[in-house]
C-alpha cells in the first residue's frame, strides 16, 4: 500500500467506526478522527485510526447487549462506562427465545433420542463400568409393561437384549410360557448366553418343535464347547473331541435345513417397537448384534475333520465314501450360507476341489467343471465378505464424521446450557432479586449469557439435523421392514459408542483413567485459583500501622 494512502484509509476506517458507533460516543469518535490529521507520520496516523476504530467498534458491539440511554437526546452516557448496566430487554428476550427454542427441540422424539444416544457412551467414563451394563431405562419400562400386560412378545424382545444371562433366561421362559409359539426365542437367547444351564432343556424342546433344523444341534455343540472352556479342558479338546460334541455336529451337518430365526426375530422386533413406540436405535437393531455366526469355529473344525476322513477314504480307494464326506461339507456350507457361512468357506472350497478331482478321475467332466465354477464362486464370495469386513473395520467416513458431529453437538449443548445457567444465576445472585427490571449484569455476564443461548440453539439445530437421517432409516425399518440402510445405521452407532476424545486411545479404560486424572488436576487448579483470588481480595492491615 502506498504510504500516502495510509492516513486516508485510516480516516475512512475511523469515519466508518464513528458511523456505526452509538450516539453516546459520537463526540469522542469525532475527537479521535480530528486528531488523525495532526498525527506525525502516515503509518502512525493509520495506527492511531485503527486504535480509535477498535474502541468505537467495541462500544458498538456492546451497545447491542447493554442498554444505554436514549440515543438522540443525550450526547454522552454515563452508563456506558459503568461496570454494571441494566440489561437491554431485547437482549433478555433474545436469550429467552433461544433457550425456549432449544428446549422445544426436546418435544421432537428424534431429538430426544439423538441426545440420549450421544451421551450414552459417557456412562462408561462416568460410572467406570462397561457401557453394555448401563441400565437401559426404556428396556426396564418395557419389561414392566410387558409383564403387566402379559405380553409374550414384549418379554421375548427384552430377553434377547438383556445383558444379564439369568434375567434373559427368566424373561425368555416367561415369554414361551405365555406363548409357546415363541419357543425359537430360546435359540436366540442361547446364542447370546451359551453358558446358561437351561440350554440342554431348551435344545430338547427346540428339537421337538423344529426337528429338521440344524440350529439346536449347533447350540448343543456350542454349549459342550463352552463347558469345556469353563472346566479348563480346552487344551485337550482338539486331540479327542467328546462323543457328544461329535454327535451334535454330525446331526447339524446332516440336518436338512438351517434356520437362525432371523426373520421371525425381525418381525417380532418391529411389532414390539411399534406397539411400545420405542425409538432407541441400539435396541431397535439390537437383534443384528445378537445374531449368531453359528458356532463358526465348531463348524469349521468339524468340516475339517470330515474332509480329513474323506481324504483318508479316498486314499484307501473308497471313492463313494469319500464323495459322501465331501458332499456333507458342501451341503452344510451351502445350508449355512449368510448365517456365518464365510467361516467355513475354506473347507467348502476344499470340498469342491476334492469332488472335482474325483469327478475327473471318474470321467465326469461336467460335474468337475461345475465344481470348479462353484469353487471360484466361493472365492468371489470370500473376497466380497473380506471387503465388507475391511470397510467395516476401517469405518465409513460419512458415518464417522456424522457421529463426530452428533457427539460434539450434544456436548456443546451441555456446555452452552451450563454457561447460560451460570450467567443467569450470576444475575440473580448479584442483585438478590428476581424482578426483571432489577436485573443488572456486568459485560462478561451478558456476553456469556447471550453466547450461551446462541450456542445452545445452534448446537440443538446441529444435533437434530445431523441425527435426523439415521432416525429416518430406523423409522423406515420399523414401519416398512426395509433394512437396506440398517448397515449405515449400525456403522454410525458403532462410532457413537466411543466417547468424544477417546478415538486415539487403544483401550477405553486408558481414556477413562486420563479423563479422571485431568478432571482432578483441573479441579485442583481451580481450587488453587480460588484460594489465590480470595487471598488477594481480602482486606489487608495497613503497612504503615
Amino acid at each position, binding site marked *: 500500500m502506498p504510504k500516502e494512502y495510509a492516513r486516508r484509509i485510516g480516516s475512512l476506517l475511523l469515519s466508518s467506526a464513528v458511523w456505526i458507533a452509538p450516539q453516546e*460516543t459520537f*463526540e*469522542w469518535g*469525532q*475527537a*479521535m*478522527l*480530528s*486528531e488523525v*490529521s*495532526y*498525527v506525525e507520520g502516515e503509518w502512525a496516523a493509520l*495506527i*492511531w*485510526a*485503527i*486504535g*480509535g476504530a*477498535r*474502541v468505537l467498534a467495541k462500544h458498538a458491539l456492546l451497545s447491542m447487549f447493554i442498554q444505554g440511554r436514549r440515543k438522540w437526546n443525550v450526547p*454522552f452516557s*454515563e452508563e*456506558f*462506562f459503568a461496570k454494571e448496566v441494566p440489561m437491554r430487554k431485547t437482549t433478555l428476550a433474545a436469550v429467552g427465545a433461544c433457550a425456549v427454542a432449544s428446549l422445544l427441540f426436546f418435544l421432537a422424539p428424534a431429538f430426544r433420542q439423538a441426545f440420549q444416544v450421544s451421551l450414552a457412551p459417557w456412562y462408561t467414563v462416568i460410572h467406570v463400568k462397561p457401557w453394555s451394563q448401563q441400565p437401559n431405562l426404556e428396556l426396564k419400562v418395557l419389561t414392566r409393561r410387558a409383564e403387566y400386560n402379559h405380553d409374550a412378545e414384549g418379554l421375548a424382545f427384552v430377553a434377547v437384549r438383556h445383558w444379564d444371562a439369568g434375567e434373559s433366561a427368566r424373561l425368555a421362559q416367561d415369554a414361551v410360557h405365555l406363548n409357546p409359539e415363541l419357543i425359537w426365542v430360546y435359540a436366540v437367547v442361547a446364542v447370546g448366553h451359551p453358558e446358561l444351564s437351561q440350554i440342554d432343556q431348551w435344545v430338547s424342546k427346540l428339537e421337538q418343535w423344529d426337528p429338521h433344523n440344524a440350529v439346536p444341534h449347533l447350540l448343543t455343540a456350542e454349549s459342550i464347547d463352552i463347558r469345556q472352556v469353563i472346566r479348563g479342558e480346552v487344551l485337550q479338546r482338539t486331540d479327542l473331541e467328546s462323543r457328544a460334541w461329535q454327535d451334535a455336529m454330525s446331526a447339524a451337518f446332516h440336518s436338512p435345513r438351517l434356520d437362525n430365526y432371523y426373520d421371525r426375530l425381525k418381525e417380532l422386533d418391529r411389532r414390539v417397537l411399534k406397539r411400545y413406540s420405542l425409538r432407541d436405535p441400539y435396541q431397535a437393531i439390537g437383534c443384528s448384534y445378537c445374531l449368531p455366526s453359528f458356532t463358526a469355529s465348531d463348524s469349521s473344525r468339524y468340516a475339517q475333520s470330515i474332509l480329513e476322513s474323506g481324504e483318508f477314504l479316498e486314499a484307501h480307494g473308497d471313492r463313494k465314501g469319500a464323495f459322501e464326506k465331501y458332499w456333507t461339507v458342501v451341503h452344510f456350507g451351502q445350508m449355512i450360507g449368510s448365517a456365518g457361512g464365510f467361516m467355513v468357506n475354506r473347507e467348502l472350497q476344499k470340498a469342491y476341489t476334492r469332488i472335482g478331482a474325483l469327478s475327473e478321475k471318474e470321467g465326469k467332466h461336467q460335474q468337475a467343471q461345475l465344481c470348479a465354477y462353484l469353487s471360484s464362486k466361493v472365492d468371489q464370495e470370500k473376497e466380497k465378505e473380506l471387503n465388507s469386513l475391511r470397510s467395516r473395520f476401517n469405518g465409513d467416513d460419512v458415518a464417522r464424521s456424522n457421529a463426530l458431529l452428533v457427539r460434539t453437538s450434544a456436548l456443546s449443548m451441555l456446555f452452552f446450557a451450563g454457561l447460560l445457567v451460570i450467567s443467569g444465576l450470576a444475575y440473580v445472585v448479584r442483585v438478590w432479586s428476581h424482578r426483571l427490571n432489577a436485573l443488572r449484569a456486568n459485560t462478561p455476564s451478558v456476553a456469556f449469557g447471550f453466547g450461551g443461548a446462541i450456542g445452545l440453539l445452534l448446537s440443538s439445530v446441529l444435533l437434530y439435523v445431523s441425527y435426523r437421517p439415521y432416525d429416518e432409516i430406523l423409522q423406515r425399518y420399523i414401519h416398512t421392514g426395509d433394512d437396506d440402510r440398517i448397515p449405515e445405521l449400525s456403522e454410525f452407532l458403532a462410532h457413537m459408542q466411543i466417547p468424544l476424545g477417546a478415538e486415539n486411545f487403544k483401550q477405553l479404560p486408558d481414556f477413562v483413567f486420563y479423563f479422571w486424572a485431568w478432571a482432578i488436576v483441573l479441579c485442583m487448579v481451580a481450587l488453587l485459583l480460588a484460594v489465590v483470588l480470595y487471598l488477594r481480595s481480602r482486606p489487608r492491615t495497613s*503497612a*504503615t500501622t
Partner: protein
Amino acid sequence: METPRLSPQTLRVLERFVERPTAWRYGYELSRDTGLKSGTLYPILMRLAKHSLLETKWVTTEDGVPPRHTYRLTTKGIKEVRKALAQACSGRKVRQLALSGSGA
C-alpha cells in the same frame, strides 16, 4: 460519584495533566507524552470526563483544518487527582521500602 479506578495508564495520563493543571491538552499530544495508543488513551479520557474530573471543548485552530478536541482537569479533578496521586505515590514508596528491606 466515586473516583475511577486508577490504573498505571490512568496515573500516567493524570501526571501529565497535573504538570500544567490549567492548560488545555490535545489527545495526540497526550498520546505522545504518555506513550499510550489511541485505543488505550481515549477510554481513559472518556472515563475521567464521565466522573467530571476532566472538561472538554472543541477548538478551531486555523481555517481548513478540522477543529480539535481539547481536555483539561476541572477544579474537582485537580483536587481529586492530587489526592489520588499522593496516595499512589505513598503506596509506591511503601512498596519500594518493603522491597529494599530498609523499612524494617
